[in-house]
């Protein structure tokens, strides 16, 4: 009896290992690179993917719609995607997942409004009032419609970190009824574009890479530029990380290499990213 069980367990283990290997092998041997992750990086990554495909016609780089940074971190070790895009580093609990996080670019996190909204500047104090419901109209008289993100949204977290009051106000807003909600970064900017008077937080990279009909606001008189970000004057920075398996396939390595190349860096810069010098 005991011997029979041992034999059965060994066969099962071998089967599992082979399955995993084959999965990775199949993915490794395929000519498609699947990239997914934070919505803030998706737009830029599509441009990089296009450039890479142009250079490597036999390779298909498929950039998935946003699954979020956490989604990328979960999907990558499972082999659902080849390259994950995260707007945050790995947590301590994620370190033993067999993945690594590699910083590849940064971009300012911006407060954005529709190009139809005649507003250029905003202050933290104003945002406090807006989120708390005290300030309801823009200077041009249009109704302010803040767009709320889910609690785990990185952009929102950065906003909250600007001041305790703002954190408080945002938390109040998250509980308020009737405010617009967006589940993804793309959905956020979609609503900023379409909703009169709306505003939310997004990234410069997204704005430029997707050529959205929105514009960023000068926060506390500091324009959200790469320069101000580098100098530290602008307070909100979003860092983009590649989430990669520890053992990467050749196609992944080659793509990563491309991103870190001069060409890749140029593309990154073109779309509001500050590339990491590799």
């Amino acid at each position: 009896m005991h011997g029979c069980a041992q034999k059965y367990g060994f066969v099962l283990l071998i089967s599992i290992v082979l399955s995993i290997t084959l999965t990775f092998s199949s993915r490794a041997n395929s000519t498609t690179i699947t990239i997914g992750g934070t919505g803030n990086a998706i737009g830029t990554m599509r441009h990089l993917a296009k450039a890479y495909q142009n250079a490597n016609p036999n390779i298909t780089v498929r950039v998935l719609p946003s699954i979020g940074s956490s989604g990328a971190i979960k999907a990558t070790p499972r082999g659902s995607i080849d390259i994950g895009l995260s707007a945050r580093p790995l947590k301590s609990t994620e370190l033993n997942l067999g993945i690594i996080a590699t910083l590849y670019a940064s971009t300012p996190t911006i407060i954005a409004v529709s190009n139809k909204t005649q507003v250029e500047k905003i202050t933290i104090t104003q945002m406090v009032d807006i989120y708390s419901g005290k300030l309801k109209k823009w200077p041009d008289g249009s109704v302010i419609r803040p767009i709320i993100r889910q609690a785990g949204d990185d952009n929102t977290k950065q906003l909250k970190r600007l001041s305790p009051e703002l954190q408080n106000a945002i938390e109040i807003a998250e509980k308020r009824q009737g405010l617009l909600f967006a589940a993804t970064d793309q959905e956020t900017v979609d609503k900023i574009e379409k909703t009169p008077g709306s505003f939310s937080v997004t990234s410069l990279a997204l704005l430029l890479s997707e050529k959205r009909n929105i514009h960023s606001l000068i926060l506390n008189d500091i324009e959200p530029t790469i320069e101000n970000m580098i100098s530290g004057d602008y307070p909100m920075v979003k860092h983009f990380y590649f989430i990669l398996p520890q053992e990467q396939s050749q196609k992944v390595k080659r793509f990563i290499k491309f991103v870190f190349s001069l060409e890749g860096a140029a593309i990154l810069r073109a779309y509001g990213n500050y590339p990491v010098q590799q």
Partner: protein
Amino acid sequence: MFPINKTIDSVLLRFTIIISLIVAISLPMIYAVLGYSDLSDHLKFKAKIKSSAQSEMITTLPNTWMYAENRMQGLLAREPVTLKNEYIQIFDLTGNALTSVGTPIDGISMQRQYPLYDIGNIVGYVVINASVSHLIFNTFITALIGMFLGFCVLMLLWFIPVKKLRAISNELEEEKQQAEITLKSINDAILRTDKYSNLIYLNPAAEKLIGHSFAELKGKSISEILTLFDSQTMLATQSAIYNTIKEKKSSSCKGTTSLLTDCGKLISIEEQAVPIFDKDHQLIGGVLCLSDVSYMREKLAVRSWEAMHDSLTGLNNRRSFQEKTHQAIEDAQKSNLFSIVCFMDLDRFKIVNDTCGHSAGDDLLIELSQIISSQIRSTDSLARLGGDEFGLLLYGCDIGSAQIIATNILKEVNHFQFICDGRIHTVGISIGMTYIDNNTYSVKDVLSEADSACYWAKESGRHRFCVFQDNVVELTARREEINWVERIKSALLDNRFILYHQTYKTLNQDENAVPHQHLEILLRLISSRGDIISPDQFLPAAERYDLIEEVDQWVINEVFSEFHNIQNMYSGSEIMVNINLSGASMNSIELFDFIDSKSKQYNIKNTSICFEVTETVAVRNLRTAIEFINKCKELGFKFALDDFGTGASSFSYLKNLPVDYLKIDGSFISNIESDGVDKTMVEAINQIGHLLGKKTIAEFAENQAIIDILEELGIDFAQGYGICKPIPLFSDGNSRYKRKPQARN
């Protein structure tokens, strides 16, 4: 207040408690069920909504949606509906939790899930949990409220409807008690049966009547309990309850039913049975009421006997006798059975009655009844018709046998001696008899014939019998006269006399005298059919049966009351109205006062009234006549001597008789044309009359030739068809007298 029925009270209490418990329990139960169902539906709906919210992401990211934790969380937490105290998770197909929002629920919770679909394929589940602690708490609160409501319902039901029910129950109990007391108190026997006529109730009066208790009779059929007979036929009869049960309607048996008790006593009873129906109008039984009518029937029998019998003698009375006579007439017509009816009147009974007193008279009648009864057969019927009159019906008897019986009765009555106060009195009996044969139709006629025959027996000398058919002519006439009596009385009562008149013609007018229009008042009778009847038909009966005075007074009253109208009829001349007076009236001491009062009442001219009395009447009571005439003449009235020449053989009385006119009898006038003697007689009478200062009037002046002769002879006035036929005094004839009520003094 009667004690409340404990069973009803207990039932009412249980009912109340049950209702209260139902209210107390049902409220929280219903709340819990509804609340649980509502929460379940809510969670299902929310799970479905959340699942739908994820569907786009799943469809667009079929391989990586499960990793988009933030996105899933955002949709779970906020879109499209926010969570409220709920814990929601998304699971993949293997049961791994992909993400969750909210705080895990401690304690008892409800979980609902909805699949996540990727174009129809289930790829996971949305599981939503919510605490049911608030539902439990609210159910507990509701239970408390329910208990309070249940208590309120208990109080309300107990004190209001139940109290009402208890009051109704008390009323019903009270009515039941009263009904039972009533049933026990009444004298009539009350039996109640089921629909098979078996006894289920008996009141004490019934127990007493039947002679058995209810316990002994319960469940038995009525036919076993009651032995009923028809008291006339003595045949057994069935109780009315059977007919009631069969026909399902009330029935009764009154008249001749008797109940035979166990001790052999026969009790006259009347039965009244009514059916009993339930609320669906189905027969469930019947009630039989027995009334002891023994006393009533005895009284009825006595009354019946008294109605048909004479209480003094015990004989049949007039009514009974008439019925038996009627039966004999019917039998004669059907089977040609000959019978004899006798009308018997005692002779000299009035003497005994007046001498010895009415009590002795009664004793005599009783004894005579027995004597007469002893002489008749068992099939004959003897009746006392009234006073000292008896009727005897000899049924199936010929005239010869009847005469023998009558003879025997005469003999026995003749031998009968009634002793009163030491004196011996004898009576006789006059018997009139007539027979009934197949030509006899009327009881009234038969009795009238027998009565007439009895009268004739009396007229013939009394204490004898007389057969109607042997003296039919005389007796018929008498019967007719008797008939006229009733008709005259009826005419007086109904005012069916009418005045006619016949005017005179003045032949020789005294130059010094004031001309008068003479007219004689004549009387007619109008029958009930409207026929005009001449006085020669009814006046003899009126005189014979003492009605003439009344008739004369009627005429006088009518003429006096209409005097002025008569005067107006002959306006322009004086009138002389002649009114006939009978001997009986003239001999009446009341007549003068009547005439005087009426003349004053109607304010007439007395000198225009002339009373006619016949020569015969005047001569018969000459002194009375002279006194009466003189008294009236003092008032101004005139007098004429009617039918002059037929009465006395000499005219000496004429010198003392203060009449004003002599009316020469028509027998002298009618043949005056051809009869020289009549002519000479008339001439002589006229001369004598004129010598005595009287005027002469000739009757029966039928034609002009006679009138011429009369005028030639010097007669003062002529009356007859040749001058004027009798005509109604007034042109409206009968109606005048029908309108006027009859004047009576």
